[in-house]
C-alpha cells in the first residue's frame, strides 16, 4: 500500500511529465501503426495472389518478428543512430507480421463463389478487389491491425533505450535513481493504458466482426 501511495504521490506531483511521456508514446505508436498498415496491407494483398512470393515474404517477416527488440536496436543504432526514426522502424518491423499475414489470409479466404459471381456480373480486377475482396476480408485485416497496435503500444516502452522517449522513460529513470514511486507510477501507467487501449480496440473490433459477420 505504501508503494502504491508513493506511486500515486509521484503521479500527482509530476502530472506534466506523465502526460508528456504519454504523448510521446502515443505519437510513436500511432505513426508506427500507420506505416505498418500502409506497408503491410498492400503487401499482404499482393502476396495473396502469388504463392511463391507468399512463403518467402511471410518467412522473412516471421524471422524479423522473432528478433528480440534489444538486438534489433543494437542492429539499427550503427546504421541510423538513436532517436525516434530507428524506434519507429523497429516497431513497424514487429507490426508487419500480423498485418501482412492477416491481410493475406483475409483475402485468400473470401469464398471463391462470391468472387466468381462478382466476376460473372462484370466486376473488373480493381472492382473485385475494392468492392468485394477487401470489404469481405476487412474483419480479418482489422484483427491483424489490432494485434499490431496493441503489441506496438506495449513494445514502445523499450523505445527509451534508443532515445525515443515514451512511457519507458519514467520506469528507467525510476530504476536508475532508486525512486520506487516513480518506477511504479511508470509501470502502472503502461499497464493501465495498454489494457485500456486493448479494451477500446476490442470493442471496435467486435462491432466490425458483427457488422460483417458471414453466414448463409
Amino acid at each position, binding site marked *: 500500500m505504501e508503494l502504491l501511495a508513493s506511486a500515486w504521490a509521484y503521479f500527482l506531483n509530476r502530472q506534466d511529465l506523465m502526460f508528456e511521456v504519454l504523448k510521446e508514446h502515443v505519437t510513436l505508436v500511432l505513426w508506427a501503426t500507420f506505416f505498418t498498415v500502409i506497408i503491410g496491407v498492400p503487401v499482404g494483398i499482393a502476396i495473396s495472389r502469388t504463392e511463391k512470393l507468399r512463403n518467402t515474404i511471410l518467412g522473412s517477416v516471421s524471422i524479423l518478428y522473432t528478433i528480440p527488440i534489444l538486438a534489433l536496436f543494437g542492429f539499427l543504432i550503427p546504421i541510423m543512430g538513436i532517436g525516434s526514426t530507428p524506434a519507429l522502424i523497429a516497431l513497424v518491423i514487429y507490426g508487419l507480421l500480423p498485418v501482412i499475414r492477416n491481410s493475406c489470409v483475409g483475402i485468400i479466404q473470401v*469464398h471463391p*463463389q*462470391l468472387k*466468381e*459471381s*462478382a*466476376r*460473372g*456480373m*462484370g*466486376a*473488373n480486377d480493381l*472492382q473485385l478487389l475494392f*468492392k*468485394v475482396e477487401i*470489404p*469481405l476480408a*476487412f474483419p480479418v485485416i482489422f484483427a491483424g491491425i489490432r494485434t499490431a497496435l496493441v503489441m506496438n503500444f506495449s513494445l514502445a516502452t523499450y523505445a527509451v533505450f534508443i532515445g525515443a522517449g515514451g512511457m519507458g522513460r519514467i520506469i528507467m529513470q525510476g530504476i536508475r535513481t532508486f525512486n520506487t514511486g516513480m518506477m511504479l507510477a511508470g509501470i502502472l501507467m503502461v499497464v493501465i493504458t495498454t489494457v485500456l487501449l486493448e479494451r477500446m480496440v476490442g470493442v471496435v473490433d467486435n462491432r466490425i466482426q458483427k457488422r*460483417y*459477420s*458471414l*453466414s*448463409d
Partner: protein
Amino acid sequence: MTREISVELQKVSKLYGQDKVVNEVSLSVEKGEIFVLIGPSGCGKTTTLKMINQLIPHTSGNILVNGTDVAELDVVELRRSIGYVIQYIGLLPHLTIQENIAFVLKLTKQSKKLQKEKAEELIETVGLDFSHLNRYPRELSGGQQQRVGVARALAANPDILLMDEPFGAVDPLTREQLQNELLRLQESIQKTIVFVTHDMQEAFKVGNRIGILRQGELVTLGTPMEIVKSDDEFVKNFIGQGALFEVFDTIPVTRVLEKSVPLVRIHEKVDLQAEELKDWENVFVVEPDGNCKGYIPLSDLNKDGSFAAEQIEPLPKASSPDISVKLAVQEMLWGGRTWLPIVDESTGFKGIVLFRSCAALVAENGR
C-alpha cells in the same frame, strides 16, 4: 420458321492439359427460350455455361453472343451484358439487398437514384417486399436469397441469363415454387435463358429445349418430348423409366387450355351455326362478370338455340391453372369426363381442357 439466335456455340472445346472437358460442342440457343444443359457430374455442363460469359475461356471453336464472337468483345463488358445466377447465389454478405441487386449498376457507375429505383422495381418483380431492401442477405431465407439472385441478374436488363443450378441449394418445396415463379416471370420478361441442372425433372419442367451432355460431348438435343422419345441408350438410362409420364407432369395445364371455348350468356341464344361449336358437345354459360355458371349439352338445347335457366348443369369440380397435364388427365379419369374446367381462385374461369388435346401433345411432338 427460323428464329433469332442469341447464343451460338460452334465446335467449342475446352482442354485442361490433355483433358478434353468439353469436346466440340455445337448448339444454338434461340432468342426467348429456356435452354437446359444437363448431364451427370463432370459432363462439362457448367464449363460450357461459363464459357459463354468467358468466366472460363474456351480453347477452340467460336462462341457467338447476339451474333458477335466473344473473342472480339471485352470480357468485362460481355459479362455486364449477361445476367448470371449461381447455385450458391453469391449475394455479397456485406451489402444490403438493395446494394446487391444494384451491384452491376454500381459497377457501371450508374446514379444512386437509378440504382434505388431499379432495386425497388426488381424486388417486386421477383415477388419480395420493399422491406427486404434494407436487410442483409443473412437475414433472408434460402428461397428469398435465390429470388434476390434472380433480381440481381436482371438489374442491367440483359437479354441473356445464365443460370448455373440456380435452385440446387434450396429444399424441394421451395425449388418447385421457384421453378413456377421463373416460368411465370419468363412469360413477361422473355429472356434467353441458358439453364444448367442435374435434375431431369427440373429440365423437363423449365426447358423449352434440353441438351444432354456426356463426358464433354453433346449426346442429344431437343424438346422435352423429343428427349423422352430418344432411342439413345445413354439418354434412356439417364432420364429414367416413366420419363414420358414425368413430362406430362411438368407441362403446365395452361399449355393445353382450349383457345376458343363456346360460351353463351344466360337468356341469350346459342348460334348453332357457329364455327366454334364444331367438335364440342357442350356450351358453357357465363355470367356478365366472366365467371362460368355451368354448362349445357348441345343436345339439350332447343331447336333455335335457346335454353332455360333450369337446364344449366353445374360445373363439375374445377382445377387450378397451376396443375400439370398429368394431374388434369387424372382428374378427368376420376370424374369420368373427357374435359375439365380450369378456374383460378382469384381471377375466376380460365377455360376448358380437353382430353384429346392432352393426348394430342404426344402426336404434336412427332413434327
